[in-house]
């Protein structure tokens, strides 16, 4: 059974069709890259997987581990292991990163019918994850994304992913706005996360992240459909030739 199975997905925003029939299967242990020009529907695809309000699924379905999640609330999808790293992470002033993460971890534990971890275990776990992303421990005490630089915000998304250990991580343009050092750190985080039990969908405009996180499959999205799929070499070819030759 596929970890993620998307069938005939049609999505509208404000009555305007954005996705026009997407089919995608992602198995455990795989990394898929979804690429495409601006306005092709990449971000819509990432957001609709996570159940963001305002994106109307008019046809088709999304399944995680065989379960249809198309109608589920965002938090229900999260508890089933679906994680979205945001393209534009939002600030929550006054709520510390630590407090936010603990609330998320507790919600996941309760969702599994387990007791939430002790504060000590949680803090230890969070600090380890932070150091892996070369983040100062003080980072955890700051307000969620409050006053963070662009690079810190993106690293914070990856930090949340490492701590929540989702089944499926959908990373929406996580590479945008990162300098080369930060890109390397983020890529290390993603590679550390990769495993046989999970899968990653990288949504990206450029292939440079794929130099560090090597995908098993590459898909090109254009006008709301997947117009081409291939292996890693497709990404390199896209970098060289652009999207035009695919009719995208």
């Amino acid at each position, binding site marked *: 059974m596929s970890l993620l199975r998307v069938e005939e997905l049609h999505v509208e925003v404000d009555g305007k069709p954005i996705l026009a029939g997407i089919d995608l299967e992602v198995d455990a242990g795989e990394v898929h890259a979804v690429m495409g020009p601006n306005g092709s529907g990449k971000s819509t695809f990432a957001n609709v997987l996570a159940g963001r*309000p305002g994106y109307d699924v008019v046809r088709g379905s999304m399944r995680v581990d065989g379960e249809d999640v198309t109608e589920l609330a*965002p938090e229900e999808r999260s508890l089933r292991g679906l994680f979205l790293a945001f393209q534009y992470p939002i600030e*929550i002033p*006054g709520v510390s990163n630590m407090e936010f993460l603990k609330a998320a971890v507790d*919600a996941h534990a309760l969702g599994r019918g387990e007791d939430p971890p002790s504060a000590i275990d949680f803090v230890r776990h969070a600090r380890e994850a932070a150091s892996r992303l070369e983040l100062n421990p003080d980072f955890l005490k700051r307000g969620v994304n409050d006053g963070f630089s662009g690079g810190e915000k993106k690293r914070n998304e990856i930090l949340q992913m490492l701590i929540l250990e989702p089944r499926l991580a959908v990373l929406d343009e996580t590479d945008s706005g990162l300098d080369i050092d930060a890109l390397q750190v983020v890529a290390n985080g993603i590679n550390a996360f990769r495993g046989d039990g999970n899968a990653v969908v990288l949504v990206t405009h450029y292939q440079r992240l794929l130099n560090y996180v090597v995908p098993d499959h590459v898909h090109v999205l254009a006008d709301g459909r997947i117009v081409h799929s291939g292996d890693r070499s497709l990404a390199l070819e896209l970098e060289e030739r652009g999207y035009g030759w695919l009719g995208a």
Partner: protein
Amino acid sequence: MSERSNELTDLVGEEHAATGHDYAAGFVTEIDTDTLPPGLDEDVVRAISAKKAEPAWMTEWRLDAFRRWQEMPTPRWAHVQFPDIDFQGISYFSAPKGDAPKSLDEVDPELLRTYEKLGIPLHERARLAGVEAEDEEAPQVAVDAVFDSVSVATTFKERLAEAGVVFCSMSEAIQEHPELVRKYLGSVVPKPDNFYAALNSAVFSDGSFVYVPKNTRCPMELSTYFRINAENTGQFERTLIIADEGAYVSYLEGCTAPMRDDNQLHAAVVELVALEDAEIKYSTVQNWYPGDAEGNGGIYNFVTKRGTCLGDRSKISWTQVETGSAITWKYPSVMLRGADSVGEFYSVALTRNFQQADTGTKMTHIGPRTKSTIVSKGISAGRSQNSYRGRVRMNPGAKGARNYTQCDSLLIGDTCGAHTFPYIESKLSTAVVEHEATTSKVSDEQLFLCQQRGIDPEKAVAMIVNGFCRDVFRTLPMEFAVEAAKLLEVSLEGAVG
């Protein structure tokens, strides 16, 4: 209104609150009472005074206030709306039957159960709710429990007496410490200060009295828990706290009332006096019944609270968390008379459904180098109206005085209102007055981020609001901060569970 905002509004309980299940303190205690019939004239004022066996000077003081009150018009300047109050339709005194208990053992068990249910233990072994009983390190809190018009119990009196601290009901203070009461009662809030203060001065029933002697640090937190129980009754408590030279006291106040369809009036007066080098910290968690989802019932909370920093280097700090009441109308203020004295006001006011709040502070700088800080956090949801009203006044003698004001509003949904009315009166060119204000909304994006991480929307809103209030909660004593955060969460939930 967007669909999403609708959802957000539902979340904070427009619909669910109709049943009132989210107001845990809304029960009624069945107890025999001694209640004056509704109505107010000089005889009623005399009757209240007689019930308390007060000395003649006190009776005269009340009558003088009553006569002045009769001359005063009802104030209408606040940004709140309500029908005229029928002052002849209210009973001005209600007390549980029987003689006043001499000790805790004599308190009616039904009353003890009431306070227990509210999480306020009236026996001296236990601690306030939210503090684990086995935690030996937890600070002890002395409680004065005021039920309708009378104080029913005050705990830890002996231990406080060893330190020289007087903590008793106002009725008792009038009998036992008349010299202090005569000197300070009405010295901060004069009888004709305003309409409701004058009314209170005429008919006040009970409240707390605190005196902390020179160079004494009060050995524990003091607190008063106000409970309105009787129907159709107003509560008019009067509190007076005096910190003598070099003294320190931290005082906490909590309040609840049953759910009723009629509005009930609560018109209190609180006076604080800080002498040289003294410090008073006064914290309120106000959870009077706010009315139902349609705006029926609830307490009218029209309160005058003021402190005076009489001595040099004295300090008065107000912290309030206001979640209850149909209408809140209060401005805990500080008169900064002593040189280098400090006034602080930290406030969280949450309104939802049809609640209205017009609250803030007045900082009056009289002495040189006086300093004041105002941090106000207003949260509005539903169809509520939430106003900050504050006045900073720099008198000519206040050389080198400074004020910093920060006023933040948070909106939940888009049918509520947040308003800011800052008044700055400076008679002094060298005074420094800073004012910062922000308005923000709990955004759909913030909520979605939380949900995407598995946090349900109710918890998410509570967390976001708590974060917004952090600067104020920080100033509360630990156990009250926990209680305040919980209270906020429950108030936001609408439906518990």
